[in-house]
């Protein structure tokens, strides 16, 4: 091997090794590929229809010509030939496959220095209702009045500080950022020895950060620490729902850390395991892999998504001694998100096309809204929500948006809509702002979105 070949091997390997290879969420890729397949099918159908239309037209022309020929004997020879030609050149089936529509490409948003104001906000529509703003890839914060939209960091798992002034954002490490301007305040090594990525993190009301890395390790730290303290491991797999998973959560009083995985693992604030007996669940089948635990406001119940084998995720509420009392929310399958009402009486269950509320005391469910392709829901109190669409391109809010006016939904079929989509939305502890994680997805831009009436 020559020197140049040796050097190429070394340098190509080093250069490739510097690339961050964390795969973006799979679901938007799948959704887009499905949409394109359907688009091709439609195009094929349209092509066949076109051929049929041509055939019918030519037949009519031929029939007219024949009638005309019979009425005009002088031209009969030429006319007969034309008729035969017309009728015999019609292909019975399309001989060439219709070309699919050209794949849409969207210029990738240029990287924006952090923090920044919104680069493109104005969209026009004849509809007088409020307009939306588009946001490119990144972590964004916006007031509930739609004002002060700003980019504060890169895409990553994140959590609000208890006072709402900072955000912990996990990229290759955990950065503590100012929620006001995105300024980096400190960093914490998330997995000093293994280099594993952060799968989820949360910030307790008592100021303790807890996170789980993709190797299942659980660590705690305070915002001023340089590295986390290893607490234990949880059985995998983590994040069975991919980007939809909203990982681990501290209980409202900061005394318990809920770690999803294979079953549910609870740790106390000192890192000791707390017994959980979900095997004794009253559910009609094992809880299976879990994700997205959410604590009731009083901390005495925890709802989560459980997925056993190939069955779609379902919602389960655990409570009681050793968390052994389990109630499966009836009629749910393929649940995407859970959220407690602020009074803790109801659990909002977001499925692909509807939001239901489950009255925990009565054990009854009510459909609150039916819409397409929801990805998540954040209750605002007083019976209002903010929702965001799965696979939606992005928008957030104009100054005239009135979030307390009701449910917000996109007005376009979400899975055909590309550009950027919301992965997570988290309300600040003071309830005045939202953080939004906007993940990239290449493709065409989406139509405007507006609050539903």
């Amino acid at each position: 091997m020559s020197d140049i070949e040796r050097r190429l091997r070394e340098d190509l390997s080093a250069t490739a090794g510097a690339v961050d290879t964390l795969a973006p969420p799979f679901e938007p890729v799948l959704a887009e590929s499905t949409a394109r397949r359907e688009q091709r099918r439609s195009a094929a159908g349209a092509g066949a229809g076109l051929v049929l239309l041509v055939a019918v037209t030519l037949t009519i022309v031929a029939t007219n010509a024949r009638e005309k020929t019979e009425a005009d004997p002088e031209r009969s020879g030429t006319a007969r030939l034309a008729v035969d030609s017309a009728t015999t050149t019609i292909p019975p089936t399309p001989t060439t496959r219709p070309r699919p529509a050209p794949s849409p490409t969207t210029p990738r948003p240029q990287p924006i220095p952090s923090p920044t104001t919104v680069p493109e906000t104005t969209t026009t529509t004849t509809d007088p209702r409020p307009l939306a703003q588009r946001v490119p890839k990144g972590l964004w914060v916006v007031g509930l009045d739609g004002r002060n939209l700003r980019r504060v960091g890169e895409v990553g798992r994140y959590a609000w500080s208890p006072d709402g002034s900072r955000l912990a954002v996990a990229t290759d490490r955990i950065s503590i950022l100012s929620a006001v301007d995105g300024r980096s305040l400190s960093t914490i090594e998330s997995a000093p020895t293994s280099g594993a990525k952060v799968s989820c993190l949360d910030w307790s009301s008592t100021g303790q950060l807890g996170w789980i890395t993709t190797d299942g390790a659980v660590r705690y730290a305070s915002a001023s620490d340089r590295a986390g303290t290893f607490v234990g491991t949880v059985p995998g797999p983590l994040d069975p729902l991919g980007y939809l998973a909203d990982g681990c959560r501290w209980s409202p009083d900061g005394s318990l850390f809920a770690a999803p995985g294979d079953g549910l693992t609870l740790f106390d604030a000192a890192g000791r395991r707390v017994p959980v007996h979900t095997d004794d669940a009253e559910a009609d089948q094992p809880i299976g892999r879990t994700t997205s635990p959410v604590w009731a406001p009083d901390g005495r119940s925890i709802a989560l998504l459980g997925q056993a084998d190939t069955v779609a995720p379902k919602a389960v509420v655990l409570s009681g001694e050793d968390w052994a009392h389990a109630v499966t929310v009836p009629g749910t399958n393929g649940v995407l998100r859970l959220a407690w009402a602020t009074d803790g009486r109801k659990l909002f269950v977001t499925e692909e096309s509807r939001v239901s509320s489950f009255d925990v005391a009565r054990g009854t469910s009510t459909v609150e809204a039916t819409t397409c392709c929801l990805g998540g829901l954040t209750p605002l109190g007083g019976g209002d929500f903010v929702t965001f669409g799965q696979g939606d391109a992005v928008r957030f809010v104009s100054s005239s948006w009135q979030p307390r006016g009701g449910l917000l939904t996109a007005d376009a079929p979400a899975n055909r809509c590309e550009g950027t989509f919301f992965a997570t939305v988290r309300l600040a502890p003071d309830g005045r702002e939202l953080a939004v994680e906007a993940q990239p997805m290449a493709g065409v831009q989406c139509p405007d979105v507006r609050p539903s009436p």
Partner: protein
Amino acid sequence: MKLGVELAPRVAATDDLRGRYLEEYPASVRLAYLLTGDRASAEDLVQEAFVRIFSKPRRIQDPQAFPAYVRRTITNLAFSRARSSRRERLREERVSISVDGEVPVDADSRELLQALDVLPDRQRAAIVLRYWLDLSEREMADALRCRPGTVKSLLSRALETLRTELAPEPGCDAGGGRRS
């Protein structure tokens, strides 16, 4: 539950695709980066490649052939995009400014990327496929959609150019231009 049972085959198929995606993504984005020299373009390109691949599920039934199919799709997409003016613009930006989110590479890697930029696209791809992925000539020919003899020719011409591009500048200390 009835709904769950009905969904089961679809969920299993989706899990299979998800598994393939997660398995192939790291190598794919690295390949795309070496072919384009730009992280954002590489991520876009890989995402587009998987969208195209998964939109034609009949072509990916053989798991053994899947990695090669992904490589071929990425290589072809890289060629297509390189023909557009967009890449030229990105290349100029990359040279002139430090872009937020760029891959943090050392001086040697930067020099390599600049040298690869000089190569025609197919020669660049041949270098990457040979010396990074360590593919055989037959596998390279499959990825590049050409004959094995063409692969040899592409490699030969590319190496000749790179010898010049990566040669130490006159006057430099022989040992000072490279890391040890």
